[in-house]
């Protein structure tokens, strides 16, 4: 009698749990979907005090011969990538995918783009300017094609978690993986995407509004 009762009770417990679980799950899903993760190896300064890596300060020069520093991008969300103009393999694909994101956010002052050349010896400012204009980017208001000494660029690439390596045997003297990094106004990398894979870039297009909303929340009801 007793065992039968406890059996029923546990059955009831299970049923209740089964009813509750989906509600629980969707609630947590919603929470994670509304906020992008912080990427990179965190430093734990003290228990409960975790510091995620940030892009260090930089000084770059863009295709309009204007200096680009973190101040240029203040308050903005930006997408960064690493390329070179004579790259015969993945760069055109990257450029056309980046173009897709650019066109969606064209003239949106909240979003910028920074494409770093990893072949600064060849990609001088006029070369970068010509490349940008041929892509249909008339000026550097929103999309910066930037250069700096090679070491500066390669160190930055590591911070953006883009795999870039010198390789004397490869055309252009470097190999790279075509990653796009989504960066928040505090310089945290909040998303990484394979820039030659359209599905990955679709994911970036989904994440961008999430980050924008985090930076400047829109009134949820007013938006729709």
């Amino acid at each position, binding site marked *: 009698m007793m065992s039968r009762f406890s059996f029923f009770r546990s059955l009831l417990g299970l049923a209740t749990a089964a009813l509750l679980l989906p509600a629980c799950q969707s609630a947590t899903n919603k929470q994670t979907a509304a906020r992008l993760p912080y990427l990179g190896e965190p430093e734990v300064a003290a228990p409960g005090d975790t510091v995620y890596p940030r892009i260090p300060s930089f000084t770059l020069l863009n295709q309009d011969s204007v200096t680009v520093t973190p101040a240029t991008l203040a308050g903005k969300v930006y997408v960064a990538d690493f390329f070179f103009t*004579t790259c*015969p393999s993945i760069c*055109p694909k990257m*450029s056309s995918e980046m173009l897709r994101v650019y066109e969606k956010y064209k003239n949106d002052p909240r979003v910028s783009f920074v494409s770093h050349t990893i072949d600064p010896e060849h990609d001088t400012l006029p070369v970068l300017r*010509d490349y940008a204009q*041929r*892509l*249909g980017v008339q000026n550097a208001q929103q999309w910066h094609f930037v250069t700096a000494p090679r070491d500066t660029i390669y160190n930055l690439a590591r911070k953006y978690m883009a795999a870039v390596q010198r390789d004397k045997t490869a055309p252009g003297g470097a190999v790279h993986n075509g990653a796009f990094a989504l960066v928040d106004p505090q310089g945290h990398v909040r998303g990484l995407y394979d820039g030659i894979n359209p599905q990955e870039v679709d994911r970036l297009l989904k994440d961008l509004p999430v980050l924008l909303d985090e930076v400047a929340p829109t009134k949820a009801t007013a938006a729709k």
Partner: protein
Amino acid sequence: MALRPTSALLRSAVLLAAAALALPSCFTDRQNEGQKLYANHCASCHGDQGQGLRRLIPPVAGADYLTKYRDDLPCLIRRGQQGPIIVNGVHYNQVMPGHEDLTDSQITNLLNYVQSAWGNKGEKYTIREVSELLDRCQGSDGQ
């Protein structure tokens, strides 16, 4: 009488098995070689649909260049391309790498694919013709 359906079934099963064995030898990798070569060597710049990229990389779909400079194309693929060119009235200036790794017959298949894909209606090449055209840039490997 009862055996007949079974034997018919068996016979067709044997036939199917034989067909399955014979099929791979019919469809070698050479089938659609041009399309595969395009996907591996050309598509990342010239696009999946031959559309090119803005004013950066010229299209190969619907490009007047393919008929205007038909005889130059084998060497263009073998040796690559540098300096300004005009395609459909648009000026381009990018470096295209050469392809020393392709055989004459692979270049033929690739060109024939490009000349006939995406609505292109260019004149096709024979391997012999491509080898002769490749002699202009000492680019024929005779294969």
